């Protein structure tokens, strides 16, 4: 069956340029076998112009690389675009999940560094949503030579309030989130997802749902939630040494405005752009505005 978009809705173009061994044409449906390379571990999808400046998009807590579907086309015109799933999310290799390594954002950051090295990328524009903004900060700390710029969408270096610092959450809130996760994992199951969706003519939607929700092991989701909401990376911010854009939405319950200001003030030379978009996922709710802000920053 011929398809012109992959499962994430990303356009597949004929005549892709291939560069050596590291840049393979993207298959119609990304195939991610259980074991193997770092590329397979993260179910990497590559697209765009291989010779363009590489942009690596990292999804946040609760989602997978599909989150980027609306902004990616904008950058595929002139960038080499890399999408991936964090280990434990989406279609990543669950067997690569290590409860010890992934009990810290540093484990996720080390994954990113390994990924960039395997793909042989440098001068990377790392676009990190939510917790992935901090994963990017840590990865840049580990391998500064790989990074060229950083885009943080709704970053929050510490969710839990601490003295004068307002992260937006109390410990009880985090407990509540963990409970909410538990409640939903119990209600959903992989077998039920297609039935619930009730759209047999669009099986890819059922698949998407399965990927995002049900393929995630509840234990992993819970631990990722803990790691996300119980990390404190404030002291890592001043170490960021590449041009950085902080994108701040309105009414973002997860990364309130003062937090965006805090990040901006503590990442040297960073640019703070406030979006009209509301909520925590402007790349979904306002992809044009989000992409434009990133473009402006990269042009600037």
């Amino acid at each position: 069956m011929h398809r012109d978009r992959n499962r994430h809705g990303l356009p597949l173009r004929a005549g892709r340029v291939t560069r050596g061994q590291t840049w393979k044409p993207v298959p119609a449906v990304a195939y991610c076998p259980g074991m193997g390379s770092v590329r397979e571990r993260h179910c990497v999808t590559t697209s765009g112009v291989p010779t363009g400046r590489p942009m690596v998009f990292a999804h946040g807590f609760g989602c997978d690389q599909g989150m980027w579907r609306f902004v990616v086309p904008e950058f595929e015109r002139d960038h080499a675009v890399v999408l991936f799933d964090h280990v434990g999310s989406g279609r990543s290799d669950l067997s690569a999940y290590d409860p010890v390594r992934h009990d810290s954002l540093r484990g996720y950051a080390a994954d990113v560094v390994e990924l960039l090295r395997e793909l042989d990328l440098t001068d990377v524009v790392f676009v990190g949503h939510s917790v992935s903004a901090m994963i990017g900060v840590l990865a840049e700390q580990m391998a500064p030579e790989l990074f060229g710029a950083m885009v943080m969408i709704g970053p929050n270096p510490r969710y839990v309030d601490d003295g004068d610092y307002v992260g937006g959450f109390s410990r009880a809130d985090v407990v509540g989130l963990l409970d909410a996760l538990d409640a939903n994992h119990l209600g959903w199951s992989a077998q039920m997802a297609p039935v619930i969706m009730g759209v047999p003519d669009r099986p890819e939607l059922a698949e998407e749902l399965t990927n995002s929700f049900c393929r995630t092991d509840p234990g992993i989701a819970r631990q990722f939630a803990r790691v996300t909401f119980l990390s404190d990376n404030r002291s890592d911010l001043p170490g960021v040494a590449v041009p950085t854009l902080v994108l701040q939405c309105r009414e973002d319950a997860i990364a309130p405005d003062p937090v965006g200001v805090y990040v901006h003030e503590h990442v040297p030379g960073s640019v703070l752009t406030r979006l009209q978009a509301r909520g925590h996922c402007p790349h979904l709710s306002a992809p044009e505005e989000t992409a434009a802000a990133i473009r402006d920053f990269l042009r600037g």
Partner: protein
Amino acid sequence: MIAVVGGTDGEGGLDRLLDEDPADLYENAPMGYFSAVPGGRVVKANRTFCAWLGRPAEEVLGARFQDFLTPGGQVYAETHLLPLLRMQGAVREIALDLRRADGSVLPCLVNAVEVRDDAGAAVLLRATVFEATARRRYERDLLAARRAAEESEARSRVLQHVVSDLAATVSVEDVATVIVQRSRAALRARGAALVVVVDGEEGGAPGLRFVRTDGLPPTLLEEFRATVDRGLVRELPLGVRSVPLDEALHRSRPGLAAAMARAAVTELVVVPVTADSRQLGVLALVLGEGVGDLISLHEPGERPPLPEADVDLLRTIGRQAGQALERARLHEETSRQAERAAFLLEAARLLAGAADVTETVERLAALAVERLADVCVIDLVTEVGTRRTAARHRDPARQRLLDELRARQLPQRSDDHPSVRALAEGRTQWVRSPDDAYLRRITVDEQHLAISRALELAGLVAVPLVADGRRLGVVTFGADRARGSFTAADVEMAEQLGLQLALVVAKAQRYDLEVRTSHELQASLLPASPPEVPGLGIAVRYLPATYGVEVGGDFYDVVPLADHVALAVGDVVGHDITAAASMGQLGSVYRALLVDGPAPSAVIDRLQASWSLLGLQRMATALFASLAPATGQLRMASAGHLPPLLLSGGTASYLPVVPTRMLGAPPAPTPAVEWAGVLAAGDTLLLYTDGLVESRTADVDEGMDRLLQVAASAGTSEPDELLDRVLAELTGPHRGDDIALLALTRR
């Protein structure tokens, strides 16, 4: 009837009801219903939803629906519900909790669809909300049960790992490693330590040994040690015990509390390690913030008590540890006993072969630091006071410290020093854990203290060397922290070693006394240097044996008389003080005989005749000669002695002096036979005892042949030079017998 009428009426009413007003259906539907614009702002909500929220419609409209969720639900909506809705267009059965106006929470399930325009952009969100209190409670109970089951399974797994890991352990250290690592991981503890009770000094309280510690910062470990030393043993029977960092602890143990606070430790958990209800030690775990990179979910300073299931797990681990410790100890004890037996055997062998006491002591110290201790110092009592004879360290890099200690003799030490006390009291001194205050007490100055500290001693044992009730010295063993303090078995072995060493030293000291006496006696009997006799060159040598008792009965004598010189060389049988005494007596009698100037054969005959009267206990061989320096007239007679050697013009030969029976041998009818001749000018006469030509490896004939060759090829007729050559060629560093030599050259 009523039912029928009612039924009829009801049917009419039903029709009316079914022909319902859509607006009423919307407003009063048995579910909440709301619509929101992208971003979540509610633009329409039904009465049921508002009623559930407990808020008037005006309050609900215009607010974001997320604002009506619990904080956890808000995050879930932002990270899951809204993204999925955007990507999939619909979500079903999302569990969320509504926050009602009165502060209560209403568990719900939410279904939602996204209404999109032709371009695919979101226009509206429509959601239905079902109350699900009972279902959610059921699910929560289910989840709680499942989680409890998982936790229980996790604990069983920990226990399984502990048991299977312990099965492979053979040493106490192995056991400690398993217990510390497994329990630490199971409780996500910051650190852990296994402390075992060790036998106390005689009559003293049992001591404690930290077998394995993991993840404890040094200051905390130090404070913990101090606490443990002070009273933990007493608290052992109290079961698993939690010591939270609180005001009470700050008051009762300020040092420990401060160290815990510094290390971000909030709680100390002490688990008894038992076997058959005997306390073998404790497992200590420190719990606290900051395990890994994450912030604790508990508010600072608030930590829930350890779950009962964890307490049970720890108690079981404590028992498992106890049994494994017992097994490992038994195993270690068995192999240690074998080692000890081997060590004592080796020591016994070494001591049996003892020749020189200093060398023996040094070798024993070297053996001890190889097998028993890290430090071994041996002090021996001598006539000139206590001497530090050996001081060894196992680690060559630290031998320097012992060399410095060696220079510090025992009498310069404080009375409290274990070596001094052992020697003074004649009893073994066992210092289990010499702390700094103790070191201060037993050292005499800062330098001494510095050395003692640098040794990092974890135990000291001083064993007096006692034999026949006499205190001959003291051997002191030290164990450093890496080895850990000594056990009762170690001390027992040290005492056995001390006993063996004492016997050897006693024997050596008796022997030394004898040797010294004999030598002094002998030296007083033999003329130190030969007299000057005109016309003659004379040289003498006396070399004691190096094997066995270093004294013998060999002698020589040169006495110038009126017209001749009387010469004598002899050998009293035996190598001891009696032989030396007999030789002295014989020498005196011989001198007395010389008054009359008797011929050599007459000397022999007279000695033979009076032997029994003299009461000499030993027989002797001897050769007597008289030489007239002016003429060279030489007369000789031999009582069982080897023939003299003549060196004449570079030719060596034995003079055929016929030996008669030995002095003191049973009487025989024949009198002594005398040889007479002339010693030409330039000729040299060499008299010797059998020690020169007889050895363990060569018989007399070989030795005499060799002597001939050496003398002939010596190329000198200077008596001193000749003797030096002969001794150099014919003797080595080890001699089985004394040697007396007399060389005489007629000028």
